């Protein structure tokens, strides 16, 4: 390679890197700085360095603590639920059945639709007189408050998020399943192994890489989930769906408290990274 050649890859990368630096890394860095400062509007927007006080405030404030609890509860339910169902769905549509392509294409529908439109449609489905209560009525069951109840609102968001998420993550798992050579199953069948044994000893180990990816990506997506909360509940009723992500938005955009808002975002990113690391460690390959 000549000396001029050395610059060729940087030339090709330049536009993408400039965009990432200016519109992703720079804001992320200034968000980090913001989390260490307090802005006083009384003093005309003067910023004072406060160290970790914004972080202490998050934990000292009952609303902040509550939002951490909501985030943990939401994620402990939604991630295993989505991935378990996605695995089952992928196994179901991986079978050689007549018309399976038709079912697979229809299952893509929720993925193509934007999250805010999905939330709007589910808002009406879960309305007091909506589709869900109409169906419950036909089954002779009492109507439920869903999004109006502090006990059911978080579950309603879990349901809505899974309507999209299960189909989406199943797509990755299905691709993984299709990459497993069928000869492995044939050989195991000749050896007289059962369905469960084949699943445990062939399918799961060979899906490991895909499952790690799905688990990590799903955790990140759900820790930072925002739009459905904004549209369906705005964190209510009684803060029962007020995730840390949503509380950060309320603090920043509605109350203008950028310092605490940024501290919350940093906590969220830190926790997400830690959980991703733990998931990788738990699923590490022995080789």
């Amino acid at each position, binding site marked *: 390679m000549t000396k001029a050649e050395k610059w060729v890859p940087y030339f090709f990368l330049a536009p993408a890197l400039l*965009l990432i630096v200016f519109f992703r890394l720079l804001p992320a860095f200034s968000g980090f700085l913001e989390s260490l400062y307090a802005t006083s509007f009384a003093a005309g927007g003067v910023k004072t360095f406060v160290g970790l006080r914004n972080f202490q405030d998050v934990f000292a404030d009952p609303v902040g603590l509550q939002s951490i609890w909501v985030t943990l509860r939401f994620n402990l339910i939604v991630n295993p639920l989505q991935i378990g169902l996605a695995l089952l769905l992928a196994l179901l549509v991986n079978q050689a059945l007549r018309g399976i392509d038709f079912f697979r*294409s229809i299952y893509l529908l929720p993925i193509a639709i934007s999250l805010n439109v999905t939330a*709007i449609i589910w808002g009406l489905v879960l309305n007091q007189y909506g589709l869900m209560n109409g169906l419950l009525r036909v089954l002779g069951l009492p109507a439920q408050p869903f999004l109006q109840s502090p006990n059911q609102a978080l579950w309603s968001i879990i349901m809505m998020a899974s309507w999209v998420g299960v189909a989406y993550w199943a797509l990755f798992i299905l691709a993984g399943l299709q990459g497993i050579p069928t000869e492995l199953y044939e050989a195991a069948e000749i050896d007289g192994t059962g369905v469960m044994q084949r699943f445990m000893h062939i399918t799961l180990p060979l899906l490991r890489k895909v499952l790690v990816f799905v688990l990590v990506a799903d955790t990140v997506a759900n820790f930072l989930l925002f739009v459905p909360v904004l549209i369906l509940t705005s964190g209510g009723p009684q803060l029962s769906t007020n995730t840390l992500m949503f509380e950060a938005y309320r603090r920043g955009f509605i109350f203008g408290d950028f310092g605490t808002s940024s501290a919350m975002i940093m906590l969220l990113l830190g926790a997400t990274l830690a959980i991703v690391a733990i998931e990788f460690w738990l699923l590490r390959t022995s080789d």
Partner: protein
Amino acid sequence: MTTTVVTRTKTEQEARNLRRRRRLAELLHKLLSYVLLVSILAIVVVPLMWAVAASFTPNEQVFKYVFPFSWRALFPSDPTLEAYVNLFEQRDFGRAIVNTLALSFGSVLIGLLISAMAGFAFAKFEFRGKNLLFVIVLITFMIPVEVIIIPLYILMRDWGWINTWYGLFIPGLANGLVIFMFRQFFADIPQEILDAARVDGASWPRILFQLIIPISLPAIISGALILFLGSWNSFFWPLVVAPAPEFRVVQVAVSLAVQSRQTIWNELMAGAILAAIVPVLLVFPFQRYYVRSIASTGIK
């Protein structure tokens, strides 16, 4: 002799029983699979069918056949275009659609160019900092824009990009997923082709644009689809950076309707259908490309 005949028929009988039992098990398995497939189909389709039906129903009747549920809720009994007409005549939906189409096509064209160039650099060159840069690209695409929305908003305000096409358009152009996908695709193109072109004296940009791009149609279709869906479906960023009505995009127009017109159900549903129909119609014919590109990011 008679005993051997008897044992043979006995084993034949057993074998036949075993085969019959296995066929029965297979049949049951198939039946159960179809029951599950159809149930999931209903979970996916029924809410959407209801949304479509409600958008063609006069507003007073939207909940009429839903509570308690009857089949008529999914098929409007006296269909009307009232909701759609209102959206275009009173709510300026026409402008929102034109804005969104302009934004989406622009993002596809420029986004493809930027991502293909970056993917090419990662696939075919060795350079200092390559791995670090690639990790940065991968991480940035996993972090949704909502996370950095406040500092990004402040940046836009400082640059005077609020309520401008720049603010709406430029920050969303870099897409790590598309860069990653192009890298995977280009990596499979044999190095000899590039070397031969180099020997013939072709410049690197010429190799990318006249040699590589023309043989990369599948990657381009996948990339275009991801970029189009990304900008057609983007909601929170346009809401924050360009709140003025003349920059309204479809997703924002629909979502603002939730707050301002809570009881005009049929218009709400008509807006939702308009916002959803374009990506749905695009994903269906090209689903092979879409699925393959999405899935490849998980496997490799």
